[in-house]
């Protein structure tokens, strides 16, 4: 609870809006909380985290989440490699990141403690399941002695609770076998967290019943344990003195909200885009982490004009999307870096055919298989250049989980308008992270109905629109417009095969010029802060929240720092060079070894400096603040 505001022990809360039952109890009020649940991959920490998030969203806090789990479904139990975590920041003000450091850590076993303790804020709260601190578990975690009994945890407020035993006791009369009963212990932790942060119990009971609807015995067991955890908070002496923690509603703009993960937002954005374009959506994918959930989300939306196709491989998925677009649907394919590599040739085909296509790349750690469940931004060069030949493609990047919705719509809109493949970059952090999303009001997003040519008079396959340089889209089946297109170079007008040198030169240049015209769709650069000063941070993608927070902090300290966040990576806004020159220094934070920075230097001849990180983890605000401090002075 790093930024505590008016922390106070209040025994008789005067705030009448709070539930009357609570008014008798002590609580303290804070602005923000960062909590991390961690345990074995099999301990159900992701479920605990998402359930707590759901209740937190309904409570009206702003929030941001970051699940962190191993690539293996059941990694070696009890070892630090098998630890799964879920971090969440919630706040009464607007926030943009899941928080640098947890101030509450819930550790379900020694391995989870080992892997996460270093992140806990000094003085923070540590809730541990002592029941898991057995000799074998300690050994598996790599502890020689029980860390709860020496000074390993001395710097923290420690709550030692034998969750394992309390869970077993709660279920003593349930008739469940020991193993099944033990699996319920994550709901004890959830119940305790509900008490600690004053979440309403009732809605969670319904949620558990819905979740375990097919297994009522399990549902009831989880409810029993959940309540036991909640009541433990209420009655246990350790908590009686500190009381619960209260975070007020955030002043979010008026409207209807829903908590949404990035991949779900991408999926909804694609469906919405297809509808706004009056097209059917065909999404073709192949299972890959962390992109698969886009396919899952869309697979259930058959009633909304969506057809999904799980292809035999990544190449087939991309090709099927091209085939669908040729047929007059909105063809979309999605994957992560390794799959995008395989799709490269097909993307080139779509560039040559000049058909709309959206390619979603949910970036993960690379190279090769790399870090499947971790985040990275190292596919930027791949997106821009990873194909044979002169093969320009517009590239757009989403910057928050909810923004994936709008970025997907924008990608589709440009793909259709300019008859081109568009690459949409998100990443593992956005894909699995979540935040409150303000639902669009009906009619808020302007429709962009696709136009198909049906006039056979003087039809030339590659004749272009003067403004967009796009050729006309013709649905097969349209009388009198039968034509052939392909990946061989084509005559600039008729589309017939042409090996003519001048024609090829012209076609390469016109395809590039067409992508440059997408600049007309790029909104004016929005500078966060004054448009001149000592330091400009140039970011893209998921670093948005951290950069904004760091810049705000630095400005509050009197540093002349601003930031600008790029939505389109291709084409780049031509005015960016001018903007960068108005600052003494330019710093480019990226979760790669410096890719955008190279492009900015080459394109604008500015001495932009990289700030890089490839740890599979997003930037912390503090890391960015340190980088800003090093490069700026404080003015009073």
């Amino acid at each position, binding site marked *: 609870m790093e930024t505590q505001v008016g922390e106070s022990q209040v025994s008789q809360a005067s705030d009448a809006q709070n539930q009357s039952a609570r008014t008798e109890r002590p609580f303290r009020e804070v602005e923000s909380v960062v909590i991390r649940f961690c345990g074995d991959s099999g301990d159900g920490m992701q479920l605990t985290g998402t359930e707590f998030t*759901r209740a937190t*969203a*309904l409570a*009206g806090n702003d929030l941001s989440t970051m699940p962190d789990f191993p690539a293996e479904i059941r990694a070696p139990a009890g070892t630090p490699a098998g630890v799964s975590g879920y971090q969440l920041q919630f706040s009464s003000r607007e926030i943009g990141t899941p928080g640098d450091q947890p101030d509450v850590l819930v550790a379900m076993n020694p391995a989870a403690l080992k892997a996460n303790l270093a992140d806990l804020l000094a003085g923070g709260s540590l809730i541990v399941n002592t029941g898991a601190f057995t000799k074998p578990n300690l050994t598996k975690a790599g502890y020689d002695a029980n860390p709860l009994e020496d000074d390993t945890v001395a710097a923290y407020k420690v709550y030692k609770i034998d969750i394992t035993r309390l869970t077993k006791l709660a279920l003593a009369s349930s008739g469940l076998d020991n193993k099944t009963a033990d699996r319920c212990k994550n709901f004890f932790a959830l119940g305790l967290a509900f008490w600690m942060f004053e979440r309403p119990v009732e809605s969670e009971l319904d949620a558990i019943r819905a979740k375990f609807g097919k297994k009522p015995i399990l549902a009831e067991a989880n409810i029993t344990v959940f309540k036991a955890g909640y009541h433990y908070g209420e009655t246990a002496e350790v908590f009686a003195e500190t009381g619960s923690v209260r975070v007020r*509603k955030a002043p979010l*703009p008026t*409207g*209807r*909200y*829903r*908590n949404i993960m990035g991949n779900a937002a991408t999926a909804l954005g694609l*469906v*919405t885009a297809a*509808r706004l374009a*009056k097209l*059917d959506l*065909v999404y*073709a994918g192949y299972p890959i982490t962390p992109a698969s959930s886009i396919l899952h989300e869309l697979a259930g*939306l*058959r*009633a*909304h004009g969506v*057809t999904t*196709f799980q*292809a*035999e491989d990544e*190449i*087939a998925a991309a*090709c*099927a*999307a*091209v*085939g*669908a677009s*040729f*047929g007059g*649907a909105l063809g979309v394919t999605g994957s992560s870096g390794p799959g995008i590599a395989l799709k490269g040739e*097909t993307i*080139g*085909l779509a560039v040559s055919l000049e058909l709309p296509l959206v390619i979603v790349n949910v970036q993960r750690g690379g190279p090769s298989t790399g870090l499947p469940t971790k985040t990275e931004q190292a596919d930027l060069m791949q997106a821009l250049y990873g194909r044979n030949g002169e093969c320009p493609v517009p590239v757009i990047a989403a910057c928050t989980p909810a923004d994936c919705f709008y970025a997907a719509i924008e990608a589709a809109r440009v793909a259709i308008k300019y008859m081109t493949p568009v690459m949409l970059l998100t990443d593992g952090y956005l894909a699995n992270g979540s935040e409150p999303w*303000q*639902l*669009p009001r*009906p*009619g808020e997003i302007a*429709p962009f109905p696709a136009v198909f040519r049906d006039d056979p008079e003087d039809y030339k396959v590659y004749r272009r629109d003067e403004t967009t340089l796009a050729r006309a889209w013709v*649905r*097969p*089946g*349209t009388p*009198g*417009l*039968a*034509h*052939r*297109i*392909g*990946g061989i170079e084509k005559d600039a007008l008729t589309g*017939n*095969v042409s090996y003519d040198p001048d024609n090829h030169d012209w076609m390469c240049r016109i395809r590039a010029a067409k992508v440059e015209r997408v600049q007309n769709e790029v909104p004016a650069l929005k500078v966060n802060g004054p448009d001149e000063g000592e330091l400009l941070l140039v970011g893209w993608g998921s670093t948005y929240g951290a950069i904004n927070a760091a810049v705000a902090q630095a400005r509050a300290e009197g540093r002349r720092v601003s930031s600008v966040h790029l939505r389109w990576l291709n084409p780049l806004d031509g005015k960016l060079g001018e903007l960068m020159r108005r600052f003494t220094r330019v710093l480019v934070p990226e979760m790669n070894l410096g890719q955008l920075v190279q492009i900015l230097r080459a394109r604008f001849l500015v001495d932009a400096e990289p700030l890089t990180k490839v740890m599979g983890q997003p930037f912390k605000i503090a890391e960015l603040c340190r980088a800003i401090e090093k490069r700026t002075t404080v003015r009073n």
Partner: protein
Amino acid sequence: MNSRISGQDGRLPVLTKKDYQSDEDVRWCPGCGDYAILAQVQKVFAELQLDPDKTVFVSGIGCSSRFPYYMNTYGLHGIHGRAPAIATGLKIARPDLDVWMVTGDGDGLSIGGNHFIHLLRRNVGLKVLLFNNRIYGLTKGQYSPTSEVGKKSPSTPFGSPDEPFNPLAVAIGAGASFVARTVDTDVGHLQGVLKRAAAHQGTALVEILQNCNVFNDLTFEAITGREHRADRQLLLEPGQPLVFGKNRDRGIRFRNDGAPEIVKIGDGADEVPLSALPVHDEADAAARHAFTMAQFDYPELPVAMGVLRAVERPVFETVLRAQEVTARKGAPKPNGDGQRDLEALWNQGDVWDAD
């Protein structure tokens, strides 16, 4: 109903072979078997009066894959090996279109082998013309997955070390619902098989033995040569006994262990009466004989020609559409501006209002 030149006077227009020819210059080598196939396809299209505006030819890369450019229909010349995937996506989006795919032994069976088997497994509603010339033509003569062991080529100067596979056996193994074989030079047979394929629901695979006169001339001559083909081909007819030979005096039967043998037809000793020969059953669910017959090879056995297998089974895009119809029942309907069901989608899950 043909839409291209619908007569003003209300009479049905008649399309001729010429109406299916595009304005592109045909660029195959003179003498290539592809010319004959193109001509027969155009002829069959005219005969069936297929609507060029509702037809799409999709191909990959290779000599055969230039085919779409020469048909005056919609066409997409794709990338190497991927035509099945492109065509599948097209059929998913547009089940109403008549989609034909053209591929070769390199394109379809080597680089595109994976897509080939999955296309057949799914039974997508496509016609697939597989031009088998047992060589890579466009890249100048390397051996292919159907080249015989020991084939000398620029990439195998000591002879190819690997076993070829049989496209139709692979197809039957992958669950193909329609499998046929014909030859570029046998006009009547080619036309007959094309018409059967055109009528099939699901994936119709037609292997066309095709002569590449530049890099693999006469590769099928021993089987297809006019003077001896009757003795070396088993012309399959549905419901007819397995008889072959110029004098139609030899037959095929299967021993108890499933192995085929050639028998003399007749009533004498060491002869088998016609009535005792197995009859060709295209629809045999187990496809046992079809799988064995697909692999008949000269000189041991006559090469099976015609439709080896034709069964009805669910067609991929039809199943998809049926799922959609079911899903739409009871779902909110899009309203005038087409967004009402979207709003329902956006509002799914736990929503709350901030004020």
